């Protein structure tokens, strides 16, 4: 009997606790604009996403120091969805309904984005997504500041086909088994077919998440490369690239024989790796830390100072990478759009975002496409240097417009280059 009563009491208590927890940080001050930061600070994605939270907070400090937005200071609301996808949706709903943020900067994996998408569309929120992804999506409530496949994967393959890049004739498409590699490889296969490469010269392989034993796969690559000049396109997820590269190095497969281009390996991922055996392998991004231009130099200095001031881990060796740059661009463009629209109302900001420009650390002036919610980005191919930085060996002549609906997937020719005006059916 006592158990029944205490059960109800305890349930009420925990509900009250949670409520208090929610109410406490949100002492609603009318003269700030709340901004949500939705990145995993624990769990498997913490490695990649923690720096995005930090760079977003740095941008907020920077904007506040310059007077804020519309005369009000920005107030960050940081939550930790812990690499748990349902928790992402719950936290997104909390940010939008409880904390009443004006905009959310967040997500990394496609799953997390797909799990919060219905929430943003239902509540008409605004999300800025800074990571390269597989495309095949275009939502009115999201601005995608990372690369679509035609701004990363396809130029990389074109480079490897060219004389400059080694003239590859056979291709190993190696990825972790999830949507981003599968979609990218599908697009690449269609692209290779269009360039006359046959299926017998394409080898598609997938490994599970967290796979670390690449002996067999490297041996297979060696065997496959005996049939002709081979290049490897790696969509291996994040830090699984490290054991892959180590195995490549140890088995003596050099970049001059079989070059490997990766789309998920940047300066941060190379931090934990002995880069000497990897010299010459490639990555394709829209930004590299080693790029020399005044905007980048200033930004890197600012980041180094911020990391030191906030005593972030790894402040002794501060690195910047493409998703950080995309997050930086995104939050500044949002600020500009709000000032242009003179309001933080979602629909007004969406309209004002069209055509926004910003001087990006990659050296170009980044432009937000007037219709398709993606940035025009220049593509850079970099080779790994012994010190873990990248040498830019090739770049596109100018910014490339994104094609979120890849022309290489059947049926995409019917898609429009702008978000559908669809709304969640509530009736």
């Amino acid at each position, binding site marked *: 009997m006592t158990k029944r009563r205490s059960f109800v009491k305890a349930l009420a208590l925990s509900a009250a606790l949670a409520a208090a927890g929610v109410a406490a940080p949100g002492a609603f001050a009318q003269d700030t604009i709340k901004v949500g930061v939705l990145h995993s600070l*624990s769990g*498997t994605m*913490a*490695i990649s996403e*923690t*720096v995005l939270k930090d760079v977003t907070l740095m941008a907020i400090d920077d904007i506040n120091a310059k007077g804020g937005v519309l005369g009000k200071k920005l107030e960050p609301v940081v939550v930790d969805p812990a690499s748990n996808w349902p928790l992402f949706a719950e936290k997104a709903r909390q940010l939008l309904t409880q904390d009443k943020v004006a905009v959310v900067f967040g997500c990394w994996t496609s799953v997390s984005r797909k799990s919060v998408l219905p929430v943003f569309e239902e509540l008409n929120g605004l999300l800025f997504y800074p990571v390269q992804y597989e495309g095949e999506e275009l939502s009115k409530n999201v601005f995608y500041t990372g690369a679509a496949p035609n701004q990363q994967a396809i130029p990389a393959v074109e480079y490897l086909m060219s*004389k*400059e*890049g*080694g003239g590859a004739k056979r291709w190993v498409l190696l990825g972790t*088994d999830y949507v981003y590699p599968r979609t990218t490889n599908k697009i690449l296969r269609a692209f290779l077919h269009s360039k006359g490469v046959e299926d017998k010269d394409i080898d598609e*392989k*997938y*490994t*599970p998440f*967290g*796979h*670390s*034993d690449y*002996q*067999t*796969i490297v*041996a297979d690559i*060696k*065997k496959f*490369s*005996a*049939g*002709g000049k081979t290049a490897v396109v790696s969509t291996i997820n994040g*830090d699984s690239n*490290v*054991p892959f590269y*180590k*195995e490549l*190095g*140890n*088995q*003596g497969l050099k*970049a*001059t*024989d079989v*070059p490997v281009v990766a789309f998920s390996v940047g300066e*941060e*991922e190379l*931090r*934990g*790796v*002995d880069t*000497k*055996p990897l010299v*010459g392998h*490639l990555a394709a991004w829209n930004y590299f830390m080693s790029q020399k231009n005044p905007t980048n130099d200033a930004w890197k200095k600012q980041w180094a100072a911020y990391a030191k001031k906030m005593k*972030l*881990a*790894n402040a002794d060796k501060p690195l910047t990478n493409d998703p950080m740059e995309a997050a930086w661009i995104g939050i500044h463009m949002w600020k500009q759009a709000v000032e242009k629209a003179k309001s933080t109302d979602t629909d007004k900001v969406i309209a004002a975002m069209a055509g926004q420009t910003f001087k990006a650390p990659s050296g170009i002036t980044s432009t937000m496409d007037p219709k398709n919610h993606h940035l025009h980005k220049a593509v850079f191919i970099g*080779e790994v240097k012994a010190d873990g930085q990248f*040498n*830019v*060996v*090739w770049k596109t002549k100018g910014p490339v417009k994104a094609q979120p609906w890849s022309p290489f997937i059947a049926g995409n020719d019917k898609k429009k280059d702008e978000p559908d005006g669809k709304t969640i059916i509530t009736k």
Partner: protein
Amino acid sequence: MRILITTICFLSFNAFAQDAKVVEKLAFGESDEQVEAVAALVAAGTPQAAEILQALADGELNTSGKRVLIVKGESAVDAQTGEKLANVPEDKEDIVVNNRLRRELGGALAALKLVSPDLEVRKSSVRELLANAEPGMLPIVRKALATETDAEVKAMLEQIWAALELKAGDRATRLAAVQKLGSSRSPATKTLLLGFLDAEKDEDLRSEARKSLQAIEGRLAWGERLGVVFTSISLGSILLLAALGLAITYGLMGVINMAHGELIMIGAYSTYVVQNLFRKWGLFDWYLLAAVPFAFVVSAIVGMILERTVIRWLYGRPLETLLSTWGISLILIQAVRTVFGAANVQVENPALMSGGVEVLSGVVLPWSRIVIIGFAAFVLLLVFLLLNKTRLGLFVRGVTQNRDMAACVGVSTARIDTWAFGLGSGIAGLAGCALSQIDNVGPNLGQSYIVDSFMVVVLGGVGQLAGTVYAALGLGFANKLLEAWQGAVLAKIAVLIFIIVFIQKRPQGMFALKGRAVES
């Protein structure tokens, strides 16, 4: 590289006045011009040319304004005139070398080194050229063949000669070349012959080529089989190291330690710390010698602290131990994340663990894995000796078989428990040290190995080391064989299902021992 032929045809091997234009093209030109410049320098064959090419390959060729410099540390030499500069200019910039140029450089340098007096240098050049040879190098190869004394190098030079003749020369020469190539062991030759088959029209030549290809593929197949065996043993040795500590703590004490993965992770981070220390002291290549005992001790201490504070209160309640050690693992992960950061940390292989040994052509066995296999065997031997030849081991076995009797006879069971747990944790630390050489070191390292460790322990049965060894090797083989057949994901699933089914048939694992833990 056709440019190389033409250049060599028209130039002679006379002393070549450092043509400033060539060096300028090398430093400032477009990619095609750089390749031409490399060819010109190879054709010259002078020591200065070799020096410039080597400097470019090592990243020591810089530009400063319009000048081209070779910069070694603090001294700078003008590449075109040879004059030494007073100090290194501030505005020096690197010359970007991409894969294509690096490949050309590799071939060029190898060609220039073919006549080096050092045998090792000649061997490595000749191996390099097996894949990279171009017809323009024929004269150099002929010259080297004429003066070569070492049989192995001579054989490889003849292979290169044949490979080059395949592309040039009349029908008879090409036929002889194809037949000669049949005795090769190199996958590069296979590539060459496949290309030849594509381009060649003559039927006789094609059938000869096919015969040679078959011979080569037969030889290569042996290499692949050896490769599979090696990778299986390598995976098995890693599983063994990871699971051995768990087998001891669980088998001998009945404690299921969900924090075992984190003890592995702590061993890996200890290695990282030692590596940094040694790097600061300039003794980088020796850090592993210190890291091994350090990782053991740190993990053992952490394990013993855990045992004293948490686990000892939970004896006889294996399921609660499971849950509380899971909580410990969460805390350990977060603690490491707070101290070292969420990102992976860099643990480099020392020189002795880098690279590999080429056993058969095309089969390279990485040193790091060979060392780890040896290390696993060594640890196994030590544990065996410890358990069977020492007093501590005697007590541990006694407590396992009958705790009450051992206590009656005067064994301090509480202390033995602590030592045994420390031993198991220390071995986990050793596993972490080994893993740091081939895998990422990050807060989630332990999570990737915990399920595998459990499977090995459950499959092998508890109480006997032999079970763990057989289970680890067996799983290594099963995994690799299946992977070669069906891919990594299905292999892992199949192995897990096999274990589930196996346990239904033999619930106590392969080598069951009547131990305290069995009776739960």
